[in-house]
């Protein structure tokens, strides 16, 4: 993975001192909250329901054991002994003190971590495939590009005060594991007939109260022009977006209002102009960064066999282990969704264990996924049984990847001041209802996503089954949605009908699932059945 050089380190160190000074000025009363708020948001610090919440960046979801140990240490010394992995591959702490935040950021900087631009109207963390560099199906490792884009979008002066947040995603495979179409700007790395690499670009996607899928805006941007292209997109948006209504300022609204053709026309014109300014970095810089992502020293001559004689281990392999590009290796998914637990939460002790396991079994490397789970990307197949035994002993051995109990849930009203309803208890009750491993396997791939409010941080628009928490006359109420997807078959989930209370939503979901079982064809996922038979049968099954 990437290692900072003196320049990168100087940037994060200067940023810490800048924030230290801004915090001092706020505490001494020289800055109002209104003036300080964008500054602290640009360093990931929200004022949340219970305290200040800090979102630490995990660039494109890649980090290592040294960094994980520091995250555990931060959890113990600055927070309450745990962290929360988010739907954008970052980690959050919920109980941070403002007066300690500069020291916390200084400590993160010692392990090449930061919280730069993780909130506010910033260019946020670039999301990428959690299997990048290991996946059997990628055409190349997308992360060198993600790293270059990360650097280029850090402290962009022209785009320091954007209309809204801006989220970028990158993939290099046909299967979309980064939910491209739901981002403001996304790149699918492709090769043309001549074998040259290029960027198929999408723009104008987003969730929130107006979910919109991104449209394709370019077929083949040459990679070393991506900075100019991105600047063109950002400039068109920065100049033309509304600034009077926070709900209408995301780029998806502008693309929708201009129309795809006009948006593309403006971007192309701006792109042609910006190309004349020589802002792009040379191939040599890309090559320099790419060298850090050379594959680890995989052993050869390893066995491809996995001993499945232990049935519990076999279940875990079936759901958690994914094909690796190197013979004898596997990608191991670590579930942070124990049945009855809090989705995405991990204790400091568990973090330390995962760091040790990464060192023992995965060349020290770890990934965070947008489904709030973790990955050890380079595990020898022969090590899988030992790895599983250690994960299992620590409560990290749930075998439920993409199954009904692998629920994505935002923190909801238990943690978030924007929420209308609690999401975590709903996730817990659903997982407990469907806990039986045989039942989970029978249902197969079923992605449930829960948001506690219309801001959709739980990605409910992209759930095979989505749940949206609303406030109904001062009480919590839940709407059921069906048919969404964040993969390459992206689609919006649709609301089924009137909402339910907490007990009711779990029962309603179960009725929807049972209807699926009644009408499914062999091998059909829930999503496929819904798309084939439509809403009516489900609606009748749910409401009677």
């Amino acid at each position, binding site marked *: 993975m990437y290692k900072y*050089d003196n*320049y*990168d380190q*100087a*940037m994060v160190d*200067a940023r810490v*001192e*800048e924030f230290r*000074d*801004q915090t001092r*000025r706020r505490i001494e009363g*020289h800055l109002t909250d209104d*003036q300080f708020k*964008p*500054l602290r948001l640009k360093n990931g610090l929200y004022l949340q329901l219970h305290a200040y919440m800090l979102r630490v960046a995990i660039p494109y979801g890649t980090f290592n054991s040294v960094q994980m140990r520091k995250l555990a240490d931060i959890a113990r010394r600055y927070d309450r002994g745990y962290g929360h992995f988010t739907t954008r591959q970052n980690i959050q702490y919920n109980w941070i003190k403002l007066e300690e935040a500069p020291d916390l950021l200084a400590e993160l900087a010692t392990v090449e971590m930061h919280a730069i631009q993780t909130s506010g*109207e910033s260019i946020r963390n670039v999301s990428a495939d959690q299997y990048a560099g290991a996946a059997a199906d990628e055409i190349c490792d997308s992360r060198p590009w993600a790293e270059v884009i990360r*650097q*280029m979008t*850090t*402290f*962009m*002066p*022209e*785009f*320091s*005060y*954007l*209309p809204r947040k801006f989220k970028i995603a990158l993939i290099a495979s046909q299967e979309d594991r980064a939910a491209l179409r739901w981002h403001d700007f996304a790149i699918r790395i492709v090769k043309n007939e001549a074998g040259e690499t290029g960027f198929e670009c999408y723009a104008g996607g987003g969730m929130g109260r107006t979910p919109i899928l991104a449209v394709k805006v370019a077929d083949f941007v040459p990679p070393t022009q991506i*900075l100019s292209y991105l600047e063109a997109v950002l*400039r068109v948006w*920065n*100049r033309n977006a509304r*600034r009077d209504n926070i709900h209408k300022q995301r780029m998806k609204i502008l693309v929708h209002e201009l129309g795809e053709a006009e948006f593309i026309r403006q971007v192309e014109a701006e792109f042609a*102009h910006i190309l004349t*300014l*020589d*802002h792009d*970095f*040379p191939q*040599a*810089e890309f090559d*320099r960064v790419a060298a850090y992502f050379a594959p680890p020293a995989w052993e050869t001559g390893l066995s491809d066999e996995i001993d499945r004689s232990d049935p519990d281990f076999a279940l875990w392999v079936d759901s958690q282990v994914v094909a690796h590009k190197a013979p004898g290796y596997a990608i191991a998914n670590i579930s942070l969704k124990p049945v009855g637990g809090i989705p995405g939460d991990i204790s400091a002790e568990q973090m330390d264990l995962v760091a040790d396991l990464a060192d023992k079994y995965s060349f020290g490397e770890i990934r965070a996924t947008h489904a709030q789970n973790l990955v050890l990307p380079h595990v020898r197949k022969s090590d899988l049984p030992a790895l599983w035994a250690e994960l299992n002993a620590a409560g990290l051995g749930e075998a439920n990847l993409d199954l009904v109990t692998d629920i994505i849930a935002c923190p909801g009203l238990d943690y978030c001041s924007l929420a209308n309803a609690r999401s975590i208890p709903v996730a817990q009750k659903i997982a407990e209802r469907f806990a039986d491993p045989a039942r989970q396997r029978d249902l197969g791939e079923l992605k449930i996503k829960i948001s506690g409010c219309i801001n959709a941080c739980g990605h409910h628009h992209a759930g095979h089954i989505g749940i949206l928490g609303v406030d109904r006359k001062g009480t919590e109420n839940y709407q059921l949605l069906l048919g969404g997807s964040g993969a390459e078959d992206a689609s919006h989930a649709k609301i089924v009908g009137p909402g339910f209370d907490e007990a009711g939503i779990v029962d309603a979901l179960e009725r929807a699932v049972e209807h699926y079982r009644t009408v499914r064809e062999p091998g059909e996922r829930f999503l496929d059945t819904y798309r084939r038979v439509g809403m009516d049968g489900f609606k009748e099954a749910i409401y009677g």
Partner: protein
Amino acid sequence: MGNLIRLRDDAAADEPAVSLDSFLDQSNASAVRIEAGDDVRQLLPVLDRVRLVEVDFPKFRDGRGFSTASILREAGYKGEIRATGDVLVDLVAFMRRCGFDAFEPDVAIDPAVMESSLARYAEVYQSAADGRLPIWAKRHAQA
């Protein structure tokens, strides 16, 4: 005028800035005011008449002015670009990179804070109107 900070050696324009529409109508004005929603590219054909461009920030969070200044410098404009309105000291470093060389905030800026703010980052990741060499160029500079 009370809170004006200029980082230029030449004398300040002594006439008030007129609106973009007025400027395009007249031939004797040399100072123009660009509101946040104006399209500064309308000014590009007549840049040689301009000594001072005021770029307004109605609310400090409204970042359109950064693009306005960048576009002017990209077009070769060498006159004064002055940020007016809700200009906070924590924005000044970004403004400078985009080509602003004067600031007239509604509320006075502490010069000490501004100085340390401008000196905070020894390096920059990207090229911008200020012409500072970005990190990638330094990494690959010919020895």
